[in-house]
């Protein structure tokens, strides 16, 4: 007969049983209970606990609205308002301009422009009220960036990526939260001179449009000199770039609205032709060693803007153009339903309440300062890009 572990600590509860109780608590509560005891503190801030907590978190959706507010809803049929959804932005100064780049594991990546005419990145976990500020290595003016943010499960590390365009050879800066430092990545000159595809009309720049799947970031880019389009990928596991060609059909659609998202657990392209009034989704599927673009959806639809995020039930949240009202598109029935209660949104993405970043910088009280310093000091080593 198997004997139960009898660790007489904290009400006589063995650690695995204490963990199951703590798992049922919201992140804010866990942050507070760090001060119960040294044991609780080390348990709650351990990477293992943070990862188990993340794995059982309820799927939520994060919205950014026209009135600059944020809201969180449960990713269920009725998209119920999430009870803990009131959160405030990290301190914002008068001239700050926040733009959500994306979110991963409950950490929201925000690009702050205008601040002293430079740019900085804020990694913000609203569930635990923690944010990290990263000063971006400065660039001289005509250069722009395409951005992405993701998590490398193998090294348990959040990474922010900026690819500098148009510039030859392509420049790239990667910030590792774990290492607290920037790194310049050499990009093969074979990529040529690339730039983000023309910005979509509704104000959301294609610079922030990426799909993150299984540790790899994907953007749609245009190759400057030939006017050809392809999907640029960046693998966070080994900091390497890759290239996925488009099918001749997709490559011919240069004049249509195109964006990238994760759909059907695949990197997918959303195609929106206002003239012929249809929307299409093409998913990048693996067939043995081959990767091919397969058309998953074609729906006759008028006045659709952006495909924002795929829901748990397989529906896709989209916006109406130009109003930015939110609609839910069911690919099976091809039905597009209005979701008036969601208001006007220019961003929606998957979100979870998590303890991510709680284990960062815990050894130093002034960790926040340190990260800014290391980020700033790294800037000097990027003079070659100026």
């Amino acid at each position, binding site marked *: 007969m198997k004997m*139960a572990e*009898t660790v007489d600590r*904290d009400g006589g509860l*063995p650690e695995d049983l204490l963990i199951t109780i703590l798992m049922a608590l919201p992140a804010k509560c866990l*942050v507070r209970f760090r001060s*119960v005891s*040294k044991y609780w503190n080390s348990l709650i801030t351990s990477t293992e606990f943070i990862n188990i907590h993340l794995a059982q978190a309820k799927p939520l959706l994060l919205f950014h609205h026209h009135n600059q507010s944020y809201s969180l809803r449960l990713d269920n049929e009725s998209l119920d308002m999430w009870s803990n959804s009131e959160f405030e932005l990290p301190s914002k100064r008068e001239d700050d301009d926040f733009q959500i780049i994306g979110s991963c594991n409950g950490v929201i990546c925000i690009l702050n422009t205008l601040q002293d005419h430079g740019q900085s990145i804020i990694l913000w976990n609203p569930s635990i009220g923690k944010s990290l500020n990263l000063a971006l290595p400065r660039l001289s003016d005509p250069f722009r960036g395409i951005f992405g943010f993701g998590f490398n499960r193998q090294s348990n590390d959040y990474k922010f990526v900026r690819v500098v365009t148009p510039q030859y050879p392509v420049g790239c800066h990667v910030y590792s939260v774990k290492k607290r430092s920037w790194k310049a990545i050499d990009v093969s000159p074979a990529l040529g001179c690339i730039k983000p595809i023309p910005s979509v009309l509704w104000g959301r720049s294609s610079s922030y449009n990426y799909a993150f799947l299984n540790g790899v970031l994907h953007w749609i880019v245009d190759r400057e000199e030939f006017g050809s389009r392809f999907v640029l990928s960046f693998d966070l596991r080994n900091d390497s770039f890759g290239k996925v060609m488009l099918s001749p059909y997709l490559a011919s659609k240069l004049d249509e609205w195109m964006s990238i998202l994760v759909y059907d657990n695949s990197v997918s392209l959303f195609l929106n032709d206002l003239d012929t009034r249809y929307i299409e989704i093409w998913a990048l599927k693996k067939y043995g060693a081959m990767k091919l673009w397969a058309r998953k959806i074609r729906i006759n639809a008028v006045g659709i803007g952006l495909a924002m995020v795929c829901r748990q039930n397989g529906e896709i949240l989209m916006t109406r153009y130009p109003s930015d009202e939110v609609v839910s598109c069911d690919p099976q029935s091809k039905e597009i339903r209005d979701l008036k209660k969601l208001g006007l949104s220019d961003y929606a993405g998957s979100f979870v309440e998590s303890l991510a970043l709680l284990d960062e910088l815990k050894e130093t009280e002034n960790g926040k300062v340190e990260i800014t310093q290391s980020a700033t000091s790294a800037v000097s080593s990027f003079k070659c890009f100026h």
Partner: protein
Amino acid sequence: MSSSTDSPTLTTETTQLSPQPDTETAKPTKKITLKSSDNQIFEVEESVAMEFATVKSFFEDSPSTDTVPLPNVTAKPLSQVIEFCKEQIKFKANPDEAQKKKYNAEFVTEKSDKDLVDMIPVANYLEIKDLLDVLNQAVADRIENKSVEYVRSFFGIDNDFTAEEEAALRREHAWAYEGVDED
């Protein structure tokens, strides 16, 4: 429905069974004896005892036993766990999710903090998944909006932080201490 629970679980290796025919299958209410670590004896119906995965596998391993010793379980939480499982058997026979939810809620509401915490290792040891879920959620609900001091006394934990260490943690996450219920 209930007839299926009347026959004891037999494995293919039951050649050691006593020679006389097994008359127990005919009895509608076979009792099983559980013995707590403080030597209290509990006679429970077999169907209830079979809710305890640990007891069930004990019988599968040694079918001829009539008393199951539970060396990690004291009498009080055991009696409460039995009380819970008796009700669950009824819901198995007549499924009524609303009533079951109501009963589960009442079951935990009337228990003291200590009773709840004491039952958790028992439910875990006896592998009663439903009860474990109910208890975990109940404990989480009781401490969710509470202060750190409340949680320490709830679990009987000594504060081993120095005043400076605790103050530093509270400073770091001051907002997490807002909106907490009165103890």
